[in-house]
């Protein structure tokens, strides 16, 4: 079974949801015309990243009643879509969110669990943290969604792996930083290294969709990637350029890699649970 994956590296309009929606619909159409089955947009692709007081203005639910979401849900009848947005719950808490849309339905919404609030980041000031990490079933098998800082921590990808995800979808709006003598920024090296490492460690497919463009002085470097369960690079987006990166995922690679390297079979989650309980001061 094959999955034709498209990673949509967009430069978003900051706070202009209508303009971003138009860009999404255009790229969804383009991805479909290039035979993609699934198109993954970066973190906060519908809104832009450094939102500050714009958060409440751009927030909305991922449902048919939201005129900014309705066309995306409709478009998902032809192609699966992962889109980034600001979710607002019934009690007016705001979340950095990504939704998986398929078959004209919202299949899954992930709320970013780790909100970086240090250095150049100020997410914890404006957003509520999500409180669950769940895999979900798609027509390509079980998948998991994480947003940027979520996968700077090792536990969320691990939990998705334990929850059955064979396809890890990472969405980022990662400001580039750390210029030195190397040919990529430090932050780009770091993310590239860990995404490949997760593919290797979890013998799973890992796709990372990262945005491009600028917001004030922040640059977003793009460089979206796809790795197969053996850690081989299947797709590499350009640095700094907007556009679609296409990759063909041979899903049967999971069986071959895991037969050779049965890390999943040998993983002892109950041991992790036991030791974590001890470490956290609870008796088992």
């Amino acid at each position: 079974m094959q999955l034709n994956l498209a990673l949509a590296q967009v430069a978003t309009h900051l706070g202009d949801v209508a303009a971003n929606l138009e860009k999404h619909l255009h790229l969804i159409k383009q991805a479909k015309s290039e035979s993609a089955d699934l198109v993954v947009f970066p973190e906060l692709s519908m809104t832009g990243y450094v939102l500050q007081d714009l958060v409440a203005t751009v927030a909305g639910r991922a449902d048919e009643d939201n005129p900014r979401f309705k066309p995306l849900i409709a478009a998902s009848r032809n192609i699966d879509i992962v889109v980034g947005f600001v979710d607002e719950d019934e009690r007016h808490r705001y979340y950095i969110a990504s939704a998986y849309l398929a078959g004209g339905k919202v299949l899954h919404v992930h709320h970013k669990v780790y909100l970086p609030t240090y250095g150049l980041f100020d997410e914890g000031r404006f957003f509520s943290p999500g409180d669950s990490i769940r895999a979900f079933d798609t027509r390509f098998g079980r998948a998991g969604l994480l947003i940027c800082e979520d996968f700077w921590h090792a536990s969320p990808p691990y939990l998705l792996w334990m929850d059955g995800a064979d396809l890890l979808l990472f969405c980022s709006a990662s400001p580039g930083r750390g210029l030195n003598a190397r040919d990529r920024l430090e932050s780009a090296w770091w993310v590239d290294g860990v995404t490949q490492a997760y593919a290797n460690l979890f013998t799973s497919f890992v796709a990372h969709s990262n945005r491009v463009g600028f917001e004030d002085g922040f640059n977003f470097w793009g460089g979206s990637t796809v790795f197969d369960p053996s850690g081989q690079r299947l797709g590499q987006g350009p640095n700094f350029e907007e556009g679609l990166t296409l990759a063909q995922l041979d899903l049967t690679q999971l069986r071959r890699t895991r037969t050779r390297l049965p890390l999943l079979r040998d993983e002892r989650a109950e041991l992790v649970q036991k030791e974590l309980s001890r470490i956290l001061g609870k008796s088992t």
Partner: protein
Amino acid sequence: MSADAIAPKPDLSINTDLAREILTRFIRSEVTRTGYGRGVVGLSGGLDSAVSLILAADALGAANVLAVRLPHDTSSPDSLEHAQLMIDALGVPSKTIDITPMVEPFEQRDPKISKARKASIMARMRMIALYDQSRDFNGLVIGTSNKSEMLLGYTTLWGDMAAAIQPLGDLYKTQVRQLARALEIPAVIIDKPPSADLWSGQTDEGELGFTYEAVDRILFLLVDGRFSPGACIQAGFKESFVTRVADLMRKNQFKRMMPPIAKLSNRTIGYDFLYPRDWGT
């Protein structure tokens, strides 16, 4: 484990191709999204403005960048000549505005005016002339300030720091020099002593009392590396030098921010009325 920490070794080398790519895209993005397509650069004949000019011309197209030479009677004649080298090499439109008659009334009003006051007036006159050209040319002022002078406060508030965007503001002077070499800026511009050119014979390093080569390494350790002043001393810098640099950084914080607003209401600009500059674009 040894009680002595390992002395840090600052390495300020940068990938100039990557710097050029990011900065060119930055200028293009941040100028065009405001609805403008053009830029104005005050060209002193020195290194920083030569680099800003090349990046702006790359980003916006040479025809869309106005190079403005702003000489004063006391400026070094080399400055005009070196600026002209850049204008000719890039084929950008240019203007020369002599600020001498703009500064003169201040000197006449107070014949005992100090060198420092006159220098500030000159820097601010250049700002006025540049912003006037910005209107006339319909382009944004592209700044030329670097990280070293911003951190040391070696700059005139509302003068040479005034700009719509600062492409070089996160590069130390010695890093701008690396970029200048990669951009093939003429050696006469790269190799001459950096100067604000506010009076005859003035050099940055003469006035500051240290070289950019040295101070950049201390700043890099303190700011980028988050090392303590003690670690800088361990790295081989004199205590008095490290202390002076740390003091200059602290005392000049005001030059790096908007004036604080006295908070009275529930929503105040700068504290809890927070929007990025690129709001809505």
